[in-house]
């Protein structure tokens, strides 16, 4: 009984792991192919089934007419994601602390309503905002620019940062701030000197979520840019057509998802601790 269960368990784990790994392994092997390795049907093992070549990887960094320019979108993506994440974290942490520690009232609007307002922005389908964003950025002259994208991404990430941080601050006992204020700090001083240094785990989780949603967004990057500015997902998807060589497509896909996959291995301990459970209760 016990052995059957264990056998079944590891078989299931193996099966799901293969499913998870399939696109990565396929992309990896495809990235070393040339036309011969692709057009004859699916091949898997280099040397045995096809002759491996580095061509798919070389065109990524080759500049000029014959390469696919992936370096500039990579930098743009990093700049947009990091700036929007930092702005959202700063504004979100402040707002979350306010919502968690002070009582706000404006007519019938209470703290819980304001918190819900922040969170509810996640319900908004991107397409609903895409058209007004398009017109707004056009009006501001920020269409097709890094600054315009940062502005839009802040709207995307701020609700996430606020949500995670409200939950985090609600679990920090208010006595901590009271102690600091007794020691002669005003609320802002208490926040900066005592609360903030003790909130790094929460900020790390919020920051991680900002990075994931920022780096992986496609829709706004796609609808709000044309030629001058291009973010990474847009650049890779632009390669997605029947004439595209699969090898350079695979190589660019792998380098695009690599940063967050690497981060995943470092933050696993963070994510699969019990902390997350509190956030959605």
């Amino acid at each position: 009984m016990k052995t059957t269960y264990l056998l079944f368990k590891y078989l299931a784990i193996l099966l799901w792991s293969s499913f998870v790994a399939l696109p990565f392994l396929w992309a990896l092997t495809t990235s070393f192919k040339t036309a011969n390795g692709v057009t004859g049907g699916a091949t898997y093992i280099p040397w045995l089934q096809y002759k491996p070549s580095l061509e798919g990887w070389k065109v990524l960094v080759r500049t000029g007419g014959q390469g696919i320019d992936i370096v500039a979108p990579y930098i743009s993506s990093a700049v947009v994601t990091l700036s929007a994440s930092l702005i959202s974290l700063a504004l979100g942490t402040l707002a979350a602390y306010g919502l968690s520690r002070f009582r706000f009232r404006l007519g019938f609007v209470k703290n819980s309503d304001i918190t819900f307002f922040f969170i509810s922005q996640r319900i908004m389908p991107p397409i609903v905002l895409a058209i007004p964003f398009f017109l707004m950025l056009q009006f501001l002259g920020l269409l097709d620019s890094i600054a315009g994208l940062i502005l839009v991404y802040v709207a995307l990430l701020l609700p996430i940062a606020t949500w995670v941080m409200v939950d985090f601050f609600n679990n920090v006992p208010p006595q901590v701030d009271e102690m600091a204020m007794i020691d002669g700090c005003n609320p802002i001083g208490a926040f900066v000197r005592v609360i903030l240094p003790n909130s790094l785990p929460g900020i790390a989780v919020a920051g991680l979520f900002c990075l994931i949603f920022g780096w992986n967004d496609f829709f706004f990057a796609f609808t709000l840019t044309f030629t001058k500015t291009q973010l990474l997902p847009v650049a890779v998807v632009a390669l997605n057509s029947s004439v595209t060589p699969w090898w350079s497509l695979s190589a660019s896909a792998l380098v695009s998802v690599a940063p967050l996959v690497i981060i995943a291995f470092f933050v696993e301990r963070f994510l699969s601790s019990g902390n997350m459970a509190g956030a959605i209760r």
Partner: protein
Amino acid sequence: MLKLKYKHFFLLPGLIVLVAIIIFPLLFTVRVSFSSWDVVKPGLDWLGGKNYVRLFHDLRFWEALSRLSMMAVGSVLIQYMLGFALALLVWRDVILKRFVRVLFLVPMMTTPVIMSVIWRTILHESLGPANDIVRLFGFEPLTWLSTGGMSMISVILVEVWQWTPFMFLLLLAGLLSLPNEPYMAAAIDGAGPVRTFFSVTFPLMAPISIGAILIRLIEASKLMETVYVLTSGGPGTATETSSYYIYIRGLRDYQIGYAASLSLIYLVIMIISLTIIAKVLTYKIARD
């Protein structure tokens, strides 16, 4: 008075930014939806409710909506069951625990559109490995992306690959925070593993299950990127979702006014149905 100033220092910057970036554009959309703004005549004229009347008779919009509901609910339920099963598998001791957990999490860290591009090569009917695997089990090759029913299944397959990890993450976190006592009590009563699951684990996990399902439903109701890359809504309109249809009307045909009214109705329907689902689910556990 002084305290008032401090608390506003914390809340207002974020609140003002969010209101400015989201609420004003949204109000503007409401205004645009009453205009005939299109590629020929861009600008705010007054059309009255004509866009809304047209939308009511737009069969393609309602079909996209029902298709979206099917795909969203179907894929989220599959994600929930698989995610729960996987969380139970690695909850207690497992060889290579850390490695297995990270591996199970990895898909949700990857860019959906980029992985969809890779999936499109996998599902390629003659050059991809998907049909190789199908043949390995002795079946006829499948028309992954070229027939209506199959292409819908392909979209769901990719969604399941991408987002089951999210369910897994939340449910594993829930399992790890469960108290120990009910399990000891169940063991003393001599309950077997199946019995323990249905009378201890599952009820204790109900709140977190509902939270996880709701979050995923909210995200799945926006479904469009996977569709855009895998099938472009095709073949025909077989996988066209609401977001994708509005995208075509608004940013490809440039019928801004009409698309604005479509997107507002879509938003209202989503808010109402998600609220109903949330109420029904929480009512169920409140009663039990």
